């Protein structure tokens, strides 16, 4: 177990080195927050609520969405594709480690790094610059836990994409498609309430909403009932367990391809 924590610490340290990249991530985030502020301000012209959400609630949701997006970005799919190309995966297959756990702990270090470097400034910006009022409710307390669960879910999708990469060299296309599917279907860019009702109902049944819609709703609408939050968390946990299991099973299939093609 100790070795897994070493992996985490290692990636945390590497994150510190790429200060320049982080700076630009934050700059990009600020620009996104500003542009969407104007966009939503325009949308809410002369309206107090749309689909039951006030401007403050919707904007909090959207603005935090971009911070969370950076937070949940694992690059696991890219890392795995890179490792295959370098022939390193063969080494993993021989060593007595679990590939999924290995990738998870490596990426978790940078997650912790991003958490402090990005989310906190974003929230501060929201409150100080954009003067958004976020009431202190239960949702805010549950938000970090929900984020961790969301992270695990997002990881599953990235890991799955990485496994798909065993079959084809086209990791860019796979990764982009995965990103888009997740972003669009999870309500990362817009609260699900805005979607047409039929589509909304479908989306709520899919695992994607548990990645963005759930935690973002907790942060944007912290005053909802504790039963609502509880069921949201339960759904998240359900999907985490399901997807972890499914991807582990898929690993057993995918690894056969590696063994055949020689890694």
């Amino acid at each position, binding site marked *: 177990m100790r070795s897994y924590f070493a992996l985490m610490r290692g990636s945390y340290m590497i994150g510190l080195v*790429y200060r320049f990249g982080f700076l630009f991530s934050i700059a*990009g985030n600020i*620009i996104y927050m500003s*542009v969407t502020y*104007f966009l939503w301000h325009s949308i809410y012209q002369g309206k107090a609520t749309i689909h039951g959400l006030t401007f403050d609630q919707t904007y909090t949701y959207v603005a935090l969405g971009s911070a969370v997006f950076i937070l949940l970005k694992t690059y696991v799919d890219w890392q795995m594709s890179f490792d295959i190309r370098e022939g390193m995966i063969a080494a993993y297959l021989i060593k007595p480690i679990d590939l999924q756990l290995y990738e998870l702990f490596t990426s978790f270090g940078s997650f912790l790094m991003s958490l402090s470097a990005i989310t906190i400034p974003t929230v501060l910006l929201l409150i100080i610059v954009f003067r958004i009022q976020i009431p202190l409710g239960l949702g805010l307390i549950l938000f970090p836990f929900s984020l961790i669960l969301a992270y695990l879910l997002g990881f599953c999708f990235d890991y799955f994409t990485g496994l798909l990469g065993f079959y*084809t060299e086209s990791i860019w296309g796979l990764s*982009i*498609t995965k990103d888009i599917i997740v*972003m669009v279907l999870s309500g990362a860019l817009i609260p699900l309430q805005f979607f047409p009702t039929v589509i909304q109902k479908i989306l709520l049944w899919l695992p994607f909403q548990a990645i963005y819609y759930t935690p973002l709703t907790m942060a944007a609408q912290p005053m909802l009932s504790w039963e609502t939050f509880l069921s949201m968390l339960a759904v998240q946990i359900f999907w985490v367990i399901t997807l972890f299991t499914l991807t582990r099973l898929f690993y057993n299939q995918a690894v056969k391809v590696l063994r055949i093609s020689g890694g």
Partner: protein
Amino acid sequence: MHSLTDYLHLYFTIEKQYIKARMQYRADFIISSIGMFFSSLATLGIFWVIFNSIPDLAGWTFTQLIFIYGFYMIAISPMQILFDNIWQIRFHVQQGTFLKYYFRPLNMMFYYMSETFDLKGLTQLAGGIVLLIYASHQLNIVWSPLQIVLLLLTLFSASLVQISITILAGCAAFWVLDAYPILGLAWKLREYAPYPMNIFDGAFRFTFTYIIPLGFVAFYPSQLFLQPQTVSKLIYVSPIVGIGLFALTYWVWTLGVNSYTGTGS
């Protein structure tokens, strides 16, 4: 040394071979094209959802936004297809492999950019054309020969704006060690090009018009076709902005190329 026709013919020769070689990777082409296609439509998807709840955005209908979006997709395609090699520049500069581009009797930007031809960008181009045709049909825009010439001119200029912004950001690699994030940020900015400029207030509108002229990639030029009567003088600058910006970009590129001395002794 080489005339423009020489360069065109040479480009055709090189890319014909390049495409032949890339087509071996069928799966990669298909998957990448699908990925590109969806990602380029993501912002439009957002607009579609938004317009589900409101009749218009800052005075613009959804159909008008589709027009702007189609224009945008076409305008960013030349950058995607022809200049994709800019993403490798940091690698070449740091590894010293950039030196190879100095040794042929060719313009260096031409030689460097001719090394890649991004086929999947064609899906973006096709998508943009479809959207533009659909929207102009819905909006009953009349396409007289003069309008078409104007369209091609503004598309040309708009594509130059996008190309310039991206290459300028890429040129940072000549002077800065970890220049990739700069390019990444410039690339992210392009997503905001289809947004109607009048949702922004003073400072931002100023920035996106005069400093990083994203407005000229799609929004301002589209006005010439969407609201020709109420168009401000600013719009007529559209064709010149692209050319001027590209001249600046080429100048910075030349500076970078001259200052680069390579690694090793």
